[in-house]
């Protein structure tokens, strides 16, 4: 445990995971999840796992948040339309 | 022969990928025929392997056979129980595909092969899980089986209940799987191995059990028991099984849930049963307590349902309780009993679901009250339904009856009462449904409750409501019931099952006078309960003391997750005493 980088990365992971749960709006949560994904990738790099870091970067900080954003857009769209009709 | 073990997984997966690749140009009939043929071929392979499984086979995938006891690859285990589950899963897949033959609602445009492909993927996942000898490999195929099951459950995307049930199913099972993976991580940290036998040796080598062993045990079993729908992990099951398409229900209730219990059996036997694992008395306490709870909750909830598929789903929960008690008692006789019971139950339950599917497609409802007396013309289905219910009650010589009898003898004591009660209540509920729906007996009940789920206004799964029931839809349940009967009645079959499961460690399972009498008792009790419910609906109708229990089944994902956490804690607390006293 002499590596301060690992400690910092772990703290960042814990903090961003907590934030991802605490942020209740799914659109913002997607952004926080992207941050969590990036922080995890950093942690994996300092833990000497470049392979996992790469896929975490591609999946955790790009693909999953993107899917969530698209879902949010779909879920919100009909509501917006109804409001416009009023 | 052992080289063919991985092929058991590869064939259905290859069938599925080819169906999707060619799906655009295939007609529906060709796609479904291909699905049936591939599933049947796999079933044949599974049975052929099963017949050669003594002594048990092991195969190191990719030819990584260990030199000097140091393996790096994945080991597959082809023993009686594993291959037996794979064969049962494959046979049920064939039955489900035959049942859905040209019956299902229009497939998604230009995706004629998607439903049979999903079924084949499901089959591949189940076979892979059944023969896995490596803990992480078991997790991977467990996840495959789960993901396909979520998609299949939500297959009817125009049904509000279907998508909701599928989501609860998905969230709970995924969370359980992550708990299991956490447990695998803990075990890997302690032992540095992934093959189940190696992990077991590693635990023993390390010394007595400690908090880490307990946590790993509780977490791995959480994942498996979520799948096995043990109380309090069971909430997803009625929600999912009540809404899934009928052929999928046949697989979910008939084999997938049982695979969770099988996983518990396998993991305890190979990983935790040594001196460094969880002492047998602790496992017994944990599984018997959860099993009794599961049996009671399942039976009570089953009795009060009016949504027929939900009723059958709760009956599966109740029977899972009995299986868990059997596994928890850790004797070779009990293992034989559970195996026979699972075989018989799979046939009976799948047949009952198949018959209920006919009701849904014919009348657009699966509500016991709304269908009162409407299905009088379906003579054949009525007979099948009653036979299925009697088989569920454990009437000799059905396989369920033999399994129950052997299990009662092995477990013994006051638990026998529970076995009789659970089979009587669940079968009584099914008989009550049959009497009301097919024979119009009793008065038509009113609609007093506003809380519960009714089965009114469900969309049929066929394109139009059926005016005539296709032959496949009655032939499949008939064959399944014959299978359930054969398990108990064909001489020598039970002996073969006993040899495959416990390898001759126990006297071969057979009918005894006590067993026959207990089976007849539960059948008579079931008939009496059903008759009482029809003649005196009030005292056996909804009562206030069950209301809190029924309110727990709220359909709310947050509730279910909260109960999952309680369940893991409960499991650890039940298994803790032996470890703390060390």
């Amino acid at each position: 445990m002499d590596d301060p980088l690992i400690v910092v990365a772990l703290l960042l992971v814990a903090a961003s995971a907590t934030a991802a749960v605490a942020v209740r709006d799914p659109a913002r949560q997607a952004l926080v999840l992207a941050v969590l994904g990036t922080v995890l990738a950093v942690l994996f790099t300092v833990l000497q796992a470049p392979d996992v870091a790469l896929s975490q970067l591609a999946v955790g900080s790009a693909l999953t948040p993107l899917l969530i954003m698209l879902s949010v857009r779909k879920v919100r769209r009909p509501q917006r339309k109804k409001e416009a009709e009023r | 022969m052992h080289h063919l073990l991985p092929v058991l997984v590869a064939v259905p997966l290859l069938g599925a990928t080819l169906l999707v690749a060619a799906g655009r140009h295939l007609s529906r009939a060709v796609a479904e025929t291909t699905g049936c043929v591939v599933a049947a071929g796999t079933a044949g392979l599974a049975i052929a392997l099963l017949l050669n499984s003594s002594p048990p086979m092991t195969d190191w995938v990719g030819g990584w056979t260990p030199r000097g006891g140091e393996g790096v690859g994945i080991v597959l285990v082809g023993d009686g129980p594993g291959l037996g589950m794979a064969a049962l899963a494959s046979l049920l897949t064939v039955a489900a595909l035959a049942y859905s033959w040209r019956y299902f609602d229009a497939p998604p445009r230009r995706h004629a092969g998607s439903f049979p492909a999903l079924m084949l993927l499901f089959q591949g996942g189940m076979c892979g899980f059944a023969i896995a000898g490596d803990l992480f490999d078991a997790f991977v195929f467990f996840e495959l089986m789960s993901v396909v099951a979520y998609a299949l459950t939500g297959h009817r995307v125009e049904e509000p209940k279907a998508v909701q049930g599928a989501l609860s199913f998905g969230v709970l099972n995924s969370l359980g799987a992550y708990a299991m993976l956490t447990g695998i991580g803990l075990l890997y940290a302690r032992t540095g191995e992934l093959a189940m036998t190696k992990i077991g040796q590693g635990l023993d080598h390390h010394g007595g059990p400690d908090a880490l062993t307990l946590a790993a045990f509780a977490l791995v079993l959480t994942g498996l028991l979520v799948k096995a729908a043990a109380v309090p992990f069971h909430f997803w099951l009625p929600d999912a099984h009540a809404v899934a398409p009928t052929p999928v229900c046949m697989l979910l209730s008939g084999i997938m849930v049982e695979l969770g219990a099988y996983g518990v059996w396998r993991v305890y036997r190979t990983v935790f049963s040594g001196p460094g694992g969880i002492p047998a008395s602790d496992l017994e306490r944990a599984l018997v307590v959860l099993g009794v709870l599961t049996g009671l909750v399942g039976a009570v909830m089953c009795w009060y349902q009016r949504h027929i598929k939900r009723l059958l789903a709760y009956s599966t929960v109740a029977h899972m309780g009995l299986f868990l008690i059997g596994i928890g008692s850790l004797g070779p006789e009990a293992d034989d009993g559970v195996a026979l019971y699972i075989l018989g139950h799979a046939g009976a339950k799948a047949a009952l679901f198949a018959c209920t599917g006919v009701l849904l497609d014919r009348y657009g409802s699966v509500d016991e009250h709304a269908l009162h007396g409407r299905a009088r013309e379906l003579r054949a289905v009525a007979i099948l339904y009653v036979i299925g219910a009697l088989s569920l009650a454990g009437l000799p010589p059905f396989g369920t009856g033999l399994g129950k009898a052997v299990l009662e003898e092995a477990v013994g004591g006051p638990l026998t009462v529970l076995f009789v009660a659970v089979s009587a209540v669940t079968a009584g509920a099914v008989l009550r449904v049959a009497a009301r729906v097919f024979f119009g007996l009793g008065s038509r009940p009113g609609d007093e409750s506003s809380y519960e789920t009714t089965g009114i206004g469900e969309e049929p799964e066929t394109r139009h409501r059926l005016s005539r029931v296709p032959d496949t839809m009655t032939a499949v349940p008939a064959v399944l019931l014959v299978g359930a009967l054969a398990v108990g009645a064909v001489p020598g079959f039970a002996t073969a099952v006993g040899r495959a499961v416990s390898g001759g460690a126990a006297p071969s399972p057979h009918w005894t006078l006590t067993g026959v009498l207990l089976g007849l008792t539960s059948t008579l009790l079931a008939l009496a309960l059903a008759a009482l419910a029809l003649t005196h609906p009030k005292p056996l109708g909804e009562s206030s003391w069950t209301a809190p229990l029924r309110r727990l089944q709220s359909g709310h994902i947050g509730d279910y997750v909260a109960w999952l956490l309680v369940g893991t804690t409960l499991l650890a607390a039940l298994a803790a005493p032996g470890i703390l006293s060390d």
Partner: protein
Amino acid sequence: MSVFPYLVAAWVFLVGCYGLVTSRNLIHAVGCLAVCQSSTYVLLLAVGYRDGATAPVFSDLKPGSRPVVDPVVQALALTDVVVGATVTAVLLALVLQISKLHGTVDPDELSELRG
């Protein structure tokens, strides 16, 4: 301090569960499930770490010259990452259908399956 990484993994798992229990939006709940899953990666890779070791890639490292971290857990975590993303996709697809058919994604307002 030698257990700190494990404690972080446990914390992430529990926080995700808390989010699932209290979530008022199913999309958010699926996100919380992804948080739960990320705890498994942290645990696995923490288990495989070795002091002073490097990544197990020998394209520019002479075999045997330095200790390497455990490659097995990395392969497991890699599998896990892909599994997580696909499960998320299927669950989100179900949430979309729920929002279409029920007109809401608030679990408190879903009342079709009860009793």
